[in-house]
């Protein structure tokens, strides 16, 4: 045998010995197990991505607060679509205490998710592409401004827990007061506190998992639910919003107005009187025999979407309709009793002569 091969044999033997030991160690579960040192770091890295959202003044003197998190360096914020955002003056405070005015870029009422925008750059943020999907038993951290405890540069509240189960929110209608019935992470941490909605559910390694949900009660057993909506479920809507859909902006439309546009009267819909600047578009009356009545729209329905545009006020709805040709059909999504219902309808053209 040459020297080389003898040497190789010893080396191989050593290698085998080492590998055997490692495998035995794995069998016994012994080996490097770091203590909890990692979580402190993850918390420190995550806090800068969490924001505190305040709905200012507005009418009725209502002050409101909730949570959100940054999803881009330029200041896109993912949060819950709630009444807190129902104002022209949304204020966002970052983890370092800086305050910004925020715009509602868009929202999807079906998922109750919204995207805000502040003017900034270089902000720490979650990369939604790295969001993970997990199963029951996964240890998680929830970041939020529950009870509005944190102000200015005070960091958000951190809670620990596990995903109790990943399940569809409800098979039955009316169990939860929300139109969303898709999969959620049910949590064993108490996250359904005031102000926590829109917060971030994060894995212990810092990956974003989900957005904390709203305060919902489970009507089948009268208990409050703690849940978060997986990023994967929200992703489509977020992308739509970033691409300009599900937005309420009508100023920068490229499309031209048709010669004759569709009017609510032609559909048979009468909205509530538009008294204040942001009257929500509730249906006041449906004209008997009208296309609206035939399609099933009813009084007290709240119109939330027209096609893929968010309509937050009567003005916006009417404005949107100006871009729709009077012969085209439109899709209206309404909220009725916590359910989201879609209708497709078009004006009754033959009847046109008698319209005012």
């Amino acid at each position, binding site marked *: 045998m040459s020297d080389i091969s003898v040497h190789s044999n010893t080396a191989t033997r050593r290698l085998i010995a080492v590998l055997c030991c490692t495998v035995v160690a794995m069998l016994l579960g012994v080996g490097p*197990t770091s203590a909890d040192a990692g979580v402190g770091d993850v918390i420190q890295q995550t806090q800068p991505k969490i924001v505190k959202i305040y709905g200012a003044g507005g009418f009725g003197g209502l002050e409101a607060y909730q949570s959100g998190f940054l999803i881009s360096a330029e200041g896109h914020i993912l949060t819950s679509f709630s009444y807190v955002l129902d104002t022209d003056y949304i204020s966002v405070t970052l983890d370092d205490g800086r305050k910004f005015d925020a715009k509602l870029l868009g929202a999807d009422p079906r998922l109750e998710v919204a995207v805000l925008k502040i003017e900034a750059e270089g902000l720490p943020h979650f990369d939604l592409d790295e969001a993970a999907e997990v199963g029951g038993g996964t*240890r998680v951290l929830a970041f939020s401004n529950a009870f509005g405890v944190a102000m200015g540069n005070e960091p958000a509240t951190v809670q620990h827990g596990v995903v109790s189960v990943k399940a569809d929110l409800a098979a039955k209608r009316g169990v939860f007061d929300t139109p969303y019935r898709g999969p959620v992470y049910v949590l064993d*941490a*108490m996250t359904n506190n005031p102000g926590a909605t829109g917060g971030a559910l994060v894995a212990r390694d810092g990956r974003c998992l989900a957005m904390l949900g709203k305060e919902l009660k489970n009507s089948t057993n009268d208990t409050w639910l703690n849940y978060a909506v997986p990023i994967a479920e929200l992703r489509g809507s977020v992308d739509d919003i970033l691409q300009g859909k599900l937005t309420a902006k009508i100023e920068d439309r490229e499309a031209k107005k048709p010669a004759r546009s569709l009017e609510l009267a032609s559909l048979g819909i009468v909205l509530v009187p538009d008294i204040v600047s942001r009257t929500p578009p509730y249906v006041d009356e449906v004209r008997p025999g009208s296309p609206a009545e035939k399609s099933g729209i009813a009084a007290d329905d709240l119109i939330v979407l027209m096609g893929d545009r968010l309509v937050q006020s009567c003005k916006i709805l009417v404005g949107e309709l100006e871009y729709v040709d009077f012969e085209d059909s439109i899709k209206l999504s309404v909220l009725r009793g916590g359910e989201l219902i879609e209708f497709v309808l078009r004006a009754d053209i033959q009847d046109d002569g008698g319209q005012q």
Partner: protein
Amino acid sequence: MISKTTKTVCMLLALLCCGTTVADDLETLEQQALTAAVDEVAPSVVRIETVGGSERIGKMVFGTGPTTGLVVDPEGYIISSRFNFMNNPASILVRLPDGSRKPAKLVATDHNRMVVLLKIDVEQPLPVAPIAPLGEIRVGQWAIGMGRTYDAQRANMSVGIVSATERIWGKAIQTDAAISPNNYGGPLVDIRGRVMGVLVPLSPQSDNALAGMEWYDSGIGFAVPAEQIQAVLPRLKKGEDLRPGTVGIAFTTEDMNTGEPVIGAVRPDSPADKAGLKKGDRFVEIEGAEIRRTADAKREIASRYAGDKVKIVVLRDGKRVESTAELSVRPKRPARPAQGKPMIPKR
């Protein structure tokens, strides 16, 4: 020459070992162990659906959703929380983890530990999860509450620790895991996948079956020890409803925290009366357990059932007196106040 096979295998092994040992920090190992424990017990955790029954009990609107139960005998006996059946459903359906649905009969109720025994007919023996010996349970150990209310196929779990043993007069293990109607009737499990107890709402101040539900998800939750359920299982299987036992005395003090265990009154014809206990007697021992305070005496009695015989030792005029009492059911309060000596019966 080292063969190519050897080299390749060595490299793969090396990579594998590096990969796994670095990734498994304590938190991850714990997470894996917790989910493994849940997986161990899950085949014994069943989903219960009820049909019919009242919608309201007092001020409380009663739920209509699925609840949870635990298989305790391969022949088809299932334990669940009495809370889940308070609305007297017309029919009970048990859904086994394999998907099959079986009608169930409510065989018996333990009104002291707030559990019910159901029976279904099975073709194959059902899996029964191992039990954690009560004497081994320690404050601070992992405790996992399991239910099957959200998703029939996936058990829901909530993680906490054992907060105390011997709560609610010795009837319950206490945990800070999130316990609620979403897992009442399901098991409380240890990290080794053994059942410590069955989750039920309880309160020290009341024997009402709904008592304790207001504490759901508050970090205060209770499980009746599996060992204690095992002890009464034979009686429950026979269809025997079990009721809390009382002895029929009142203490001299109403201080149930630090008070002296001295008898202030004995109800006529009560088990205490028949056993010869008298006003002024001071409890020293009950069934061998030392009694230092009113709470100790209450624990020994309240954890037992009507019909149980207990050995009592009291101090009377400086001397130890032994006797045996057979516990009875608490008498119903008369509609009108009784004539003669009004006696408010206590344990």
